[in-house]
């Protein structure tokens, strides 16, 4: 039965993975054997994926917060697309109102809202600021732990979600209910620590995920719900020889509040991180500041 469910899930979720023309990938994994050269206009993240026996391949998805110029382009593109679509949306709305009136529903349903730019379902792909790190491309492959070095655009990042490790990454789970963010500087390697991910239907064997696992079968939509967290960088953690002469700084995480992501297949929250991220009921707590973090949107 489990096998059938997996086959079905693959057919349902992997088959229709149609991608339009997109901006090129921003985040470049530097894999074993690749030359390492630290570009002054790029930042680098270094982290490990800890995957003990019985844990499936899971990879993190990072969001780079768009800068002001990118947001201007996004908003301009949305405005132009909305202008083109608006007459059709108005016709659709009028037709819906006519159908509702003909159906004479009781109680009467409210008229649909007028089309607006804010409600416009606009898909934008000219900037590629949301990306998974391909777990099959480590700098140092090991078991249970592999090491990853990734070239990224300098800026502010959010650990946005997780995906099963597979050829076509999906936004399988967003960490919409609480996560962490961090900044990376040009010419610097930032050590993020260790990424921990597991299916959380059963109790996880990873200690940091125990309190956020064991949710049972109703936590699964069709594939099991994924949980994740970060183990902060440990002092004296091994750094590959190729990076011995490079500035490696430990990450400074900040707690990030809830956000709505309608495209994720499931939702979760990052498991608590001592000194960084905690929860009080549904509220996200910034442990360092001792206060709740507001929702983003």
């Amino acid at each position, binding site marked *: 039965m489990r096998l059938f469910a997996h086959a*079905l899930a693959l*057919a*349902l979720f*992997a*088959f*229709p*993975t*149609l*991608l*339009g023309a*997109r901006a090129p990938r921003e985040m470049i994994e530097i894999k074993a054997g690749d030359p390492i050269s630290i570009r002054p206009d790029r930042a680098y993240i270094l982290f490990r994926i800890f995957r003990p026996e019985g844990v499936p391949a899971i990879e993190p998805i990072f*969001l780079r917060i*768009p800068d002001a110029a990118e*947001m201007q382009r*996004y908003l301009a593109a949305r405005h132009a697309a909305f202008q083109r679509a608006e007459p059709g949306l108005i016709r659709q709305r009028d037709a*819906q109102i006519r159908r*509702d009136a003909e159906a004479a529903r009781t109680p009467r*349903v409210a008229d*649909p*809202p007028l089309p607006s730019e*804010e*409600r416009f*379902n*606009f898909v*934008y*792909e*000219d900037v*590629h*600021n*949301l*990306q*998974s790190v391909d777990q099959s491309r480590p700098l140092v492959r090991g078991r249970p732990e592999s090491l990853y070095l990734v070239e990224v655009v300098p800026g502010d990042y959010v650990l946005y979600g997780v995906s099963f490790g597979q050829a*076509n*990454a*999906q*936004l399988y789970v967003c960490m*919409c*209910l609480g996560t962490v963010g961090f900044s990376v500087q040009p010419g610097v390697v930032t050590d993020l620590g260790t990424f921990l991910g597991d299916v959380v239907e059963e109790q996880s064997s990873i200690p940091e995920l125990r309190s956020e696992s064991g949710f*049972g*079968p*109703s*936590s*699964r*939509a*069709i594939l099991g*719900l994924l949980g994740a967290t970060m183990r902060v960088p440990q002092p004296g953690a091994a750094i590959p020889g190729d990076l011995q002469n490079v500035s490696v700084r430990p990450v400074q995480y900040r707690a990030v509040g809830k*956000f*709505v*992501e*309608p*495209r994720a*297949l*499931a*939702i*979760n*929250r990052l498991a608590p991180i001592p000194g960084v991220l905690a929860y009080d*009921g*549904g509220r996200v707590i910034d442990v360092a500041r001792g206060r709740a973090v507001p929702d*983003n*949107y």
Partner: protein
Amino acid sequence: MRGTLPGWIILAALFCGASTASAQADGPPDPATIELPDMAPTRDQHVIADGWRHFYFHKAGVSFAEAYADFADCYRFLPVQGASPALPAFAPWSESAGARVVPRSLPWGLMGAAILDIVSGPIDRRDRQSRMRRCMEPRGYVRYPIREEVWRQLIDNYSVRSLALQAKAASGPVPNLPVVTR
């Protein structure tokens, strides 16, 4: 688009949080005006065993208004049916992003269509329940089993009306039933 709500309400709710947000802004209705289906606890072992499929949320001591606000907040995270599973390229991080919608399909012709028809209902139910669990349970809500037909009336396909129904059930008396743990 399945369900009792016109598509625009679901789109508004899911892309912009509009209907739940406006429901919140309007404030919860008077709970005295909300008529629940028959919530009497049942000792039917089939219903109890099936509780992981058909359940309702409850929190001892919660007020109707607080429960209403919790459900309204969590409804924001309900799924967009048909949203493409591909990892999107862009998120603006200032507002909820638009979703590419693709028809759900299976590749095996008529047999695929038949399978899809059978599995779609349970997939949609579990998709929504999984999200509601992750959002509601950290707030202290637990689950109790109910009969499937009562569950359907209570959930009402996650309509705006169901916010008040679920909030009233959640803030009602503690049922003499085992909590659902699966």
